[in-house]
């Protein structure tokens, strides 16, 4: 039996595509990873009376607030892109929304990098104390996820540019979107826990 015939037999059972399911399971694991980081932070903080420890450089709360808005905007623009692409039946001109989301992601991570350099200059390192260590670890883990997200978005842009069938493109957009929404959505929580609380 040929491959396509075998595929046709299986088709009726497929409610959700392989990629979407796979991404869903991956994100569950990722969520647990961040849960691990967050609960460690909370446990260690609970035993400290003064937080942040005195004599430490202040984290850039305001600048990062603006940066938070940038990342959220990126997420929203991506959502707009996904809608427009799907409702227009694969209109290629919508790609400017995707590029905008990508650009904002890059801006976000660059600003973060700049702030890191400044903080390192002020003498906040992983060695100085737990405050610094948690900051670099949690924010660093998130920054890595943003970097992966940017790679995925760029890959998607190339993929769409090359011209793919509408169905496959929609699938890819949804899968990339799931990852990007996760990265965007977890950020305000981390911002609140690490910068403000």
């Amino acid at each position, binding site marked *: 039996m040929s491959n396509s015939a*075998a595929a046709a037999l299986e088709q009726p059972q497929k409610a959700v595509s392989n990629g979407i399911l796979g991404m869903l399971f991956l994100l569950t*694991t990722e969520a647990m990873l961040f849960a691990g980081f967050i609960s460690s932070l909370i446990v260690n903080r609970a035993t400290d009376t003064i937080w942040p420890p005195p004599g430490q450089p202040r984290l850039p709360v305001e600048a990062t607030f603006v940066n938070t808005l940038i990342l959220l905007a990126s997420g929203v623009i991506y959502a707009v892109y996904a809608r427009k692409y799907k409702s227009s039946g694969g209109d290629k001109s919508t790609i400017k929304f995707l590029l905008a989301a990508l650009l904002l992601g890059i801006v976000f991570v660059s600003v973060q990098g700049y702030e890191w350099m400044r903080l390192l200059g002020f003498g906040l390192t992983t060695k100085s104390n737990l405050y*610094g260590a948690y900051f670099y670890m949690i924010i660093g883990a998130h920054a890595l996820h943003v970097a992966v997200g940017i790679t995925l978005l760029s890959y998607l842009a190339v993929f769409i540019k090359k011209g793919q069938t509408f169905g496959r493109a929609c699938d890819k957009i949804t899968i990339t979107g799931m990852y990007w929404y996760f990265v965007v959505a977890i950020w305000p929580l981390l911002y609140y826990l690490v910068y403000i609380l």
Partner: protein
Amino acid sequence: MITGLFMALVGGFLAYVFRYNLAFPGESIPLFGQLSAGQYNQFITNHGLIMVFWVGMPLLVGAFGNFLIPIMIGADDMAFPKLNMLSYWFFLTSAIVLMISFFVPGGAFAGGWTMYPPLSVNGYTDPSPSFLSAIFYGSSLMIIAVALEFTAILMGGINYLVTTINKRAPGMTPFRIPLAVWYIDIATVIFMFSVGPLVAGAFMLLFDITLGSGFYDPARGGDPVLFQHLFWFFGHPEVYVLLLPTLGVLGEIIPVFSRKPLFGYKPLIVLSLISAVLSVVVWAHHQFIAGIDPRMATFFSVATILISIPFSGIFLSLMATLWGGKIKITVPMSWALGMIGLFLVGGFTGLFLGSNAFDIYAHDTYFIVAHFHYTLFPSVFFGFFAAFYYWFPKFTGKELNKALGYIHFWLTFIFFNGVFFVLFFNGLGGQHRRIYNYEMFSNVAIEPYITFEKIATISAICLILSQVIFLWNFIVSWAAGRKAEKNPWQANTLEWVADSPPPHGNFHTAPKVYRGAYEYSVPKASEDFLPQNLQAD
């Protein structure tokens, strides 16, 4: 699978070396030479790490998962074949990284497989390779190896779940999926749910080692017990990750050789789901003496004893399957029954340990060592061998030598008990594990414990030697065995419909499924089994 078996040999060799040292302290060990105290610590640590992460997980979850899941649900291949390959290469890399760690300055990690700080962190502040200090290179490499291995298993796990959900043959409804597939998938879910916090904890450990942070250093506001929580949040579910696939395999083998439907198929699935939920709320029973709040200890005591209820249910169902069946003793069936018998000993001693009053006395003694070997050895090795002897004809299209199979089973069974049964007494007598040389502790280096140590060691050597029979049988049968029939055990599940060995794509025509997997001895049927793909007449 071959990589997993090779790692099992490495792990076994390490065990041989340190057991020899315990029985005959200070003597030169055949094939190895003098064992120093530092090496002793490295060896027990890596024995644990290898056996759990590089043998237990890849053999059952990895090898059999990849082979069985697609073929048992009637799919041509996994959902993401490339991801599968990638997962294998990650796994191989992780094994190599761990092996390298034996040869870096200071040697491999030596702070126990649980990697508790401060032993796992000290290397940073004290880089000199002293008696107990974990060493910078060794522990960093070990953490990297573990992280790679988890990435590999995670990729495999995503693949299993997606394959089971999306690639089932027509008619393979959720409640017609064979138990082995269900259990491997549930084990995967447990793994994926619990691994995140451990990776977070390991990251923090790596930060402490390499970047000099103080997450686990109380002098700098950190908390060493935090790591224990993160570790055991994964570490305890992990034992169910190792156990469930084996129970699934038993769920296939026992009905086939009892010629009877599996007793309580749906309850078995529900019970395993209950145990999956409970498995993530029992972790702190490893920390009863770590100074946790007594109220917390009581909670975890209760949860631990609760979780034995679903597992008792699973075991009773498997035994009830035997009840009144036409039992055929075959090689895989012997392993399956052996697994049930031995696991029972492990499970019963677990009940004692679950209550924190007893655990405080038995903690870190050989009683614990015997207990977890009685649970892990049957679930990893007996389960693996049962599955191996059962599916070997399908894997390779060849038959294994039966007589050698029985000899292998009985020798393994006898010598396994020889190693670990005596250790229960040593543990109750107060012998502490992880001691390099008992001659230094005169109050426990007395008869009968010295003799018991010797019995255990000689049995361990024989146990390892018995595996030569298995390797011989494996290689010779594969190369020159008799050709196996398509369905030598007359089983119902879909893998027996395919050729042996299955061709690329598994089936010539995509199978359709008409019934559950356990229709044995159905009244009025012409044979005593009804394969899942056979249309009713």
